[in-house]
């Protein structure tokens, strides 16, 4: 027997075990990739979405809250091969072939994976979820995940609040903070967008163990590395939700805007874009369908008119600015008078309605005299033959009222409107030397001017405050929300004359329909020319006369004279805000029920309006005409109405 016979087995054992220890040393100590692989296997990072901040009105009422919804989810791979979808659908109270259809839908989706959770039914309400809970118990492969969607207890304010939508790839790419994940919801418009960073809160992270079948097995390190979610900020707005809801009701079946501001602070009290929509319809399962219908609506309910609708001129409401600038620059004083015999008769003719003559500053506002303002404007622009310089001064003075520039309201997408520059007129007139008469339509607030309802309301604030305004804002002032005070640069005494005149507009002028018993109110009517149909009705007002609490601008499209619709609606809102009651139920009823939809081009009413064409005569007639519409005396195509067309006459 050879000597090595005894050692062979031992040598083998030593060799093999040495290899094993070496191998173990390699995979356990040298190669660290397995640690990472084990982590990836068993520990999943779960994102905990925080509750989005609520929106509260000025009186503490909840306007925008979160409501829990349930998504029923499942991992297709976890279903048994012989999954009985018929029984399942029956237990879940679904169509028998829902499962088959849903699976087909899911498989078509980009990035579908049978190993990843898929949404089987999305956004069940609490009540709907309660019904299917029993069925879910029998099918543990399906589970419910709680999510939150927005809810609007008042069903109003959709235009201000905006809506949420799933984040798109473009937004994800631009997300420098790496906050978002696919599938997150972000504010698309309105306050939801403007205050996204404060409303969204801070996401939480939870590391959890999962077994091989994807069942949770408790928290990793007992949650030591978890990050708690932080709910979004609840933001207090300056809105009065009841006023808002009332304003939306008054604007039902009309197109236009209402913006009311507390002039002493710049806080927006109500903000209506009509037609509007119930924001509750833009959440939940039917969101997509509702959204498509709204987007297709010819009346454009998704268009935010108060900040974006700056295509119409301010009409007679603009006269007050020219008057104030005239007084400030000394081209007139309050006693200066101009004659008016059917209008202004200079190089061109601008018509006016019948009233006594001559006209001083106060009466010019009260009766809205065109001739008076043509004279004031010509003095402002043509004085000393320095048209260019004078126009630039005028331009700057107008801009200090917040016209022709963004007001800075805390809503996305505001437009600056149009205040034509001197350069613009140089270009339009192609070197021709233009003068005041060339651009005379500006004297009475017509022509190229484009002023948005928010700018108009802001302007009303400047008058109410006798010389200054605050940046209009919806989210209350706080260290994070600075509010600036803007001076108009016009002496307070001139405002006092104007305010007195505006009070007379209500007491015995073009706006008497707006008179509220027991309230000293100041207002000014206006009519914006509309090349596409009847003129737009405009009204600005504030009340009370001393220490004003509310300033308002109301636009009603295609409504004719300012006094017909805009003034009564403003008046009802002011009364509602100041007294919280309405003393003129007949007027209220007429405004609530009145429909102007038949006047809008392209509108096809599925249900004929309550007001039949024959009943039109019952509608209120203004006690005084606002203005004689210029086109009545200018036989020119309204579409080409401009300074050049006036000049060529």
């Amino acid at each position, binding site marked *: 027997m050879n000597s090595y016979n005894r050692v062979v087995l*031992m040598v083998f*054992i030593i060799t093999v075990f040495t290899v094993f220890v070496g191998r*173990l040393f390699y995979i356990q100590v040298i190669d660290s990739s397995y640690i990472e692989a084990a*982590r990836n296997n068993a520990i999943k990072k779960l994102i905990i979405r925080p509750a989005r901040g609520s929106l509260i009105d000025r009186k503490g009422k909840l306007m925008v809250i979160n409501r829990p919804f349930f998504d029923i989810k499942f991992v297709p791979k976890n279903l048994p091969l012989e999954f009985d979808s018929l029984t399942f659908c029956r237990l879940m109270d679904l169509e028998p072939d829902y499962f088959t259809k849903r699976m087909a839908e899911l498989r078509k989706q980009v990035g579908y994976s049978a190993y990843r959770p898929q949404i089987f039914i999305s956004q069940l309400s609490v009540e709907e979820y309660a019904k299917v809970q029993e069925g879910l118990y029998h099918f543990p492969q399906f589970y419910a995940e709680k999510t939150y969607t927005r809810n609007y207890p008042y069903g109003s304010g959709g235009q201000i609040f905006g809506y949420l939508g799933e984040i798109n790839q473009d937004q994800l790419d631009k997300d420098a903070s790496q906050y978002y994940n696919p599938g997150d919801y972000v504010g698309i418009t309105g306050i939801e967008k403007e205050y996204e960073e404060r409303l969204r809160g801070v996401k939480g992270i939870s590391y959890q163990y999962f077994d091989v079948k994807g069942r949770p097995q408790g928290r990793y390190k007992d949650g030591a590395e978890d990050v708690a979610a932080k709910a979004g900020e609840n933001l207090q707005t300056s809105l009065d939700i009841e006023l808002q809801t009332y304003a939306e009701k008054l604007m039902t079946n009309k197109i236009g805007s209402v913006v009311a501001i507390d002039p002493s602070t710049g806080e927006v009290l109500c903000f209506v874009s009509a037609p509007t929509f119930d924001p509750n319809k833009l959440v939940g399962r039917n969101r997509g369908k509702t959204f498509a219908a709204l987007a297709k609506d010819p009346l454009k309910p998704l268009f935010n008119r108060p900040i974006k609708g700056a295509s119409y001129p301010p009409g007679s409401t603009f006269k007050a600015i020219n008057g104030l600038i005239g007084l400030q620059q000394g081209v007139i004083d309050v006693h200066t008078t101009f004659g008016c015999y059917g209008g202004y008769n200079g190089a061109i003719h601008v018509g006016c309605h019948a009233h006594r003559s001559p006209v001083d500053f106060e009466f010019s506002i009260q009766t809205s005299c065109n001739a008076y303002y043509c004279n004031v404007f010509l003095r402002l622009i043509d004085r000393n033959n320095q048209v260019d310089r004078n126009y630039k001064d005028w331009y700057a003075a107008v801009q200090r009222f917040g016209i022709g520039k963004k007001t800075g309201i805390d809503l996305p997408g505001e437009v600056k409107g149009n205040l034509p520059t001197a350069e613009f007129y140089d270009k339009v007139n192609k070197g021709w030397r233009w003068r005041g008469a060339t651009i005379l339509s500006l004297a009475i607030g017509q022509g190229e001017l484009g002023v948005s309802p928010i700018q108009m309301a802001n302007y009303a604030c400047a008058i109410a405050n006798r010389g200054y305004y605050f940046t209009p804002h919806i989210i209350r002032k706080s260290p994070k929300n600075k509010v600036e005070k803007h001076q108009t640069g016009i002496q307070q005494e001139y405002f006092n004359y104007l305010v007195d005149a505006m009070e007379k507009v209500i007491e015995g002028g073009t706006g008497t329909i707006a008179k509220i018993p027991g309230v000293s109110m100041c207002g000014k009517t206006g009519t914006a020319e509309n090349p596409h149909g009847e003129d737009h009705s405009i009204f600005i007002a504030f009340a009370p006369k001393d220490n004003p609490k509310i300033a308002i601008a109301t636009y009603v499209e295609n409504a004719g004279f300012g006094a017909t619709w805009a003034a009564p609606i403003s008046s009802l809102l002011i009364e509602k805000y100041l007294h919280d009651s309405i003393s003129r139920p007949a007027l209220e009823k007429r405004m609530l029920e009145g429909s102007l939809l038949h006047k809008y081009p392209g509108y096809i009413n599925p249900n004929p309006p309550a007001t039949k064409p024959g009943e039109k005569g019952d509608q209120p007639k203004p006690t005084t005409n606002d203005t004689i519409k210029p086109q009545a005396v200018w036989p020119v195509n309204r579409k080409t109405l401009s300074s050049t067309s006036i000049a060529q006459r």
Partner: protein
Amino acid sequence: MAGKQENPFKYIDRPTLILMLALVLIGWVAIHAAVYSPQMGGPFNWEHAAGRQAVWILTSVFLFVVLFSMDYRLFEGMASISYILMLGILVATIFLGKEVNGAKAWIQIGPVGLQPGEFAKLATCLMVASYLSSYDVRLENQTTQLISAFIILVPAFLIILSRDTGSALVYASFIFVLQREGLSIIYLVLGLATIAAIVLSILIPAPYLYGSVGVFMLFYVLFSRRKKQATITAITWTGASTAIIYGVQYAFENILQEHQKTRILLLLGKIEDPSGAGYNVNQSLIAIGSGGFLGKGWLNGTQTKFDYVPEQTTDFIFCTIGEEWGFVGSTVLIILFGLLLFRIIHIGERMPTKFGRIYAYGVASIIFFHVLINLGMTMGILPVIGIPLPFISYGGSSLWAFSILMAILLRMDAGMRSTMR
């Protein structure tokens, strides 16, 4: 000499007993950790593997005590009977066996299922010892070689028929027994080393292989009496091994076609196949590899506990040890196995009878092969072949079979030492 026997427990080989008990306890603790969840209650819950293993451990202790109380001279006589009986049971299993995981290796007796294959090793071991120790049997003789091969290969063949190829592979371990008893080393070298070299050449990067060969030869030279001759032999073998390793790797890379290579690599668990055998090896490596130097701590593992590793209480039990006890714990376990094997060999060498020595070598070889194949599989250096890790893996048949194997060995050792005094 044959007079009244002294209490055999007085002569039991304590180191072996302690090593054995240590391994069984490590196994029990590891099984508990492999299926642990906070809700499951303690390790004595019958619903869980650790609780059932406790029952297997207690019954094994009982079996051990019973066998240890028997007359040690009876075992030699029982060899032929148990061997023939076992062949009968194996044949019956092929036809009557219960199919588990594709193998018809189970027989249901009342509430417990047993694997006759586990016990067949024991019977074969006894039979081989009995035959080779009989008078006038010399392994240089070709007839003896053939009969020995026959005794070993018949049960292996029957086990293959019941589609339990892994267990059949263990019978190859008897080559060590034959070699110890004088079979020319050439068989071992040709049979075992070549296969190992081929497999290892494919699996392991060349530097590791050359290193292993070097260690192997170093030990050979150190343990040899005639150093000069041994050195020459060692150099020759190293050369031959190098040639084999290089040759196999060359052949594998250059002669085999791509799909053939893929098939072999897949079989060897070398490339990943997430849905098949590759998944198991990958998860096993993740579990062991993530243990690091000191491990994640008892019950703190995630890969076995959360079922990422399949068969985590039986064939892949080492994953739990690797994951929770790390490199240190795993090495300790390997050292314990090494010590146990060396002790068994030591016991074999001190046996006064040829039967005892051959039996001891059989036991050592069987345990060694189990450890080799099982650990090699979990570490991803050997193909996935499902056989249990002795004393550690969950399972009644396996634990009972190894307990009986050890009981007979220790009883003979104790008996002979007591009579020799």
